[in-house]
């Protein structure tokens, strides 16, 4: 019997800790890094997005889940987003509560990602794996769920990442359904990643931080249908678009005409109410989507259900890094100019020092360092849209990519100084302890001796 076609919704929920402005004269005594720049204070942005997107959208989703037992959705919530929920008082609690209610229905799946929305994969496999585990723990603590499917920051993907994630015990991974790699294949079928061998060191790391000791029999790749996803996420309110205005009936008829088992609609959650404002009709559109689809015999599945339900159609070979960003679907938004490269190199250069001295470096320091890895910091330094004046393609709370870089590097300098002084202090107190010990022993040896060691 032919499978009934299903929709797989996945929403990315993320807010970075934007850096407060930092000038060179503050290096050495910068107090708070993560309040955000003037007029773009992180708390204010969180509140704004909460009111425009998180709260109304969660309310609508919950209603839809309750009304249609067949309806399914999935989310990934970055660790830094969840920290902001916990940090920002009442509004944060409210947002968190509304997500909890959604997961409680059992109709919404939660996915795994790097805690700090980090580009760690590119620089340190160990850091990458540690962040996945840290995220895992936070998700369990808050939602009592254990994610089984992974999505990397900005859907950054290649064969190697897939293999690493499989080795960590996940059941599947998400990626962009980019034609360049798909060729004649359809993104609307479940695939398997092209199998590659990991470097033995990397495999060791994956095993060490695995979420399970055993691997699932099959590891699946879900590919975003970017055309149908972007119809909602980007084109929905574009009046120059030939299909504007888009209503639910028209959209579902497109879904109906689409061949395949699963239509993977992946997008930023902020699409609802923040990127597409309420007055564009985006909420009305979503509100009628489940019933219209169900009437056309189109169902819904979470990523895990999708993987379970359908046979894989074969493997997809993605040897190079791919993301879901821009026309190029590459990494150029985060690491293509010298500003970005030097900032990234510098932040990952201190990893070894931080991690090889656990007795000197506390958890707070480590977490500050990790917040500096969030991909958004590097996106703000991008010059690729800047010269063309394409403001629509580029949002930044800083005046220019150069200002973003200056603030980032000054903050990082301050951080490095703080780390250096922690190391010194730790060394100093260790030396003091040793001296003290010696003094005691000398005393024990014979009360007659006068200590010549001064501290």
């Amino acid at each position, binding site marked *: 019997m032919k499978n009934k076609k299903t929709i797989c919704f996945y929403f990315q929920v993320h807010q970075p800790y934007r850096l407060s402005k930092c*000038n060179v*004269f503050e290096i050495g005594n910068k107090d708070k890094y993560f309040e955000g720049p003037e007029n773009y204070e992180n708390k204010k942005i969180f509140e704004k997005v909460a009111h425009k997107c998180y709260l109304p959208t969660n309310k609508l989703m919950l209603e839809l889940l309750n009304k249609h037992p067949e309806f399914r959705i999935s989310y990934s919530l970055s660790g830094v987003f969840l920290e902001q929920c916990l940090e920002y008082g009442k509004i944060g609690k409210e947002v968190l509560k509304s997500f909890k209610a959604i997961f409680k229905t059992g109709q919404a799946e939660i996915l795994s990602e790097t805690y700090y929305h980090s580009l760690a994969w590119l620089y340190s496999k160990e850091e990458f794996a540690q962040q996945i585990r840290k995220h895992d723990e936070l998700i369990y603590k808050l939602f009592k769920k254990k994610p089984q499917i992974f999505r990397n920051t900005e859907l950054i993907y290649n064969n190697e990442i897939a293999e690493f994630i499989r080795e960590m015990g996940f059941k599947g991974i998400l990626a962009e359904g980019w034609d360049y790699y798909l060729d004649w294949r359809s993104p609307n079928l479940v695939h398997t990643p092209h199998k590659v061998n990991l470097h033995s060191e990397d495999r060791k790391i994956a095993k060490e931080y695995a979420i399970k000791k055993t691997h699932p029999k099959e590891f699946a790749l879900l590919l975003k249908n970017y055309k149908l996803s972007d119809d909602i996420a980007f084109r929905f309110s574009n009046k120059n678009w030939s299909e504007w205005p888009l209503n639910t009936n028209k959209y579902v008829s497109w879904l109906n005409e689409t061949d395949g088992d699963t239509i993977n609609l992946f997008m930023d959650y902020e699409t609802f109410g923040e990127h597409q404002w309420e007055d564009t009709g985006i909420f009305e559109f979503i509100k009628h989507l489940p019933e219209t689809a169900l009437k056309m015999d189109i169902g819904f599945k979470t990523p895990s259900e999708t993987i379970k339900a359908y046979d894989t159609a074969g493997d997809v070979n993605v040897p190079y890094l791919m993301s879901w960003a821009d026309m190029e679907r590459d990494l150029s938004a985060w690491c293509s100019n*010298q500003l970005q490269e030097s900032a990234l190199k510098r932040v990952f250069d201190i990893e070894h020092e931080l991690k090889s001295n656990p007795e000197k470096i506390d958890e707070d320091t480590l977490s500050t360092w990790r917040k500096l890895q969030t991909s958004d910091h590097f996106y703000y330094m991008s010059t690729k849209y*800047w*010269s063309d004046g394409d403001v629509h393609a580029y949002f930044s709370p800083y*005046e220019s990519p*150069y200002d973003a870089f*200056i603030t980032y590097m000054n903050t990082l300098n301050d951080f490095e100084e703080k780390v250096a002084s922690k190391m010194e202090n730790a060394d100093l107190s260790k030396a003091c302890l040793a001296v003290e010990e010696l003094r005691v022993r000398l005393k024990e040896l014979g009360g007659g001796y006068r200590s010549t060691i001064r501290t």
Partner: protein
Amino acid sequence: MHILMFGWEFPPINSGGLGVACHGIVEGLIHNGQHVHLVLPKVTDEMQQFDSNVFQLLDANKSGGSVDTTKIPSTLYSPYTNLDSYVQFIKKIGKESANDLYGSNLIDEVHRYAIKGAEYAKTYHHDIIHSHDWLTAEAGIQASKISDKPHIMHVHATEFDRSGDNPNQQVYDMEKRGMENADRVIAVSEYTKKMLIKYYGLPEHKIDVVHNAVKPSVSTYQKKHDISRSDQIVLFLGRMTMQKGPDYFLKMAKKVLEHKKKVKFIMAGNGDMMEQVIKMAVDLGIERNVLFSGFLKGDKVGQAYANADLYVMPSVSEPFGIAPLEAIKHGAPVLISKQSGVSEMIKNALRVDFWDVDEMANKVISVLDYPALHSTLKEHSEREVDRISWQEQAKHIITSYDKALRFA
């Protein structure tokens, strides 16, 4: 289209920006198929740099007549004005020609030019009249009265840029009269447009913004270390006048030197603040790190830019400001004040409010300390400036002509 243009100076005889800009505009217009008849106070053979079929130089003194001067308000005839910069200009272009080229009283001269120059409106066919600043606006007004063709006044600078809070009333009056009588006004920046609205009460719809450009050229200068092998170089290049903010440059230098020792600050240019600036460097105790090169000419300018690790333009008020574009062409990244027209045009530059000395120092230090910042700025700004041309900008000027003709 035939354009009757009233210019004040033209290369190779020019004191500064206005002549250079006028040359670029003429070149751009000719490139776009326009005919230009340019009236100047004095014409020399070297000025004929284009095809004489499409570009004609007309000497105001040789117009063979004079317009009826009763139409010019009498208040504009004061013989007692003394504009320092004008006197300096006269001295510079040579004493022997001062009397017959530009008189020693600027305002008198501006009127003599208007009276004589406008006469060409009777004898030369034209579709549009284009004047530059208050110096030639009156000629534009008179010419327009004769031929009834639309007059476009091009504003390169206002009296408020030049003199800050103490504008010369006569000059201001002539600027205002020019703008009010013109059919359209071209401002060299949004920054200038705002000033025209605010200080001259001009309606917004009458103003078109057309940014300046620079001529394509490839810098042949390499970074040399004549001054110091070990120190980094931060450059100021411009007139030492209140408008250019040399005092803010020094305050910034002081801040930078508190943080970082191996930096030399070069100040190139002359002007009425020269003495004050030198004294200020001494008072701040940074005279060992501040070098004064005096006024630079020709090759030396390019060399100065090429040697700089950063060019800073801390102008208090700059209608456009072509120097940063020149600096970029010679390979220097730039830090420019937000109170400048050029900052609207160049995205790959560091920007700062001229009064925000802390932030200026922060950005200077960042460029000197982070090589990636220096190289990215340099690379991207060069690419950006390469895309700017008078050929393109002239198209916007023609659009402004078309508007004037449509509503005339």
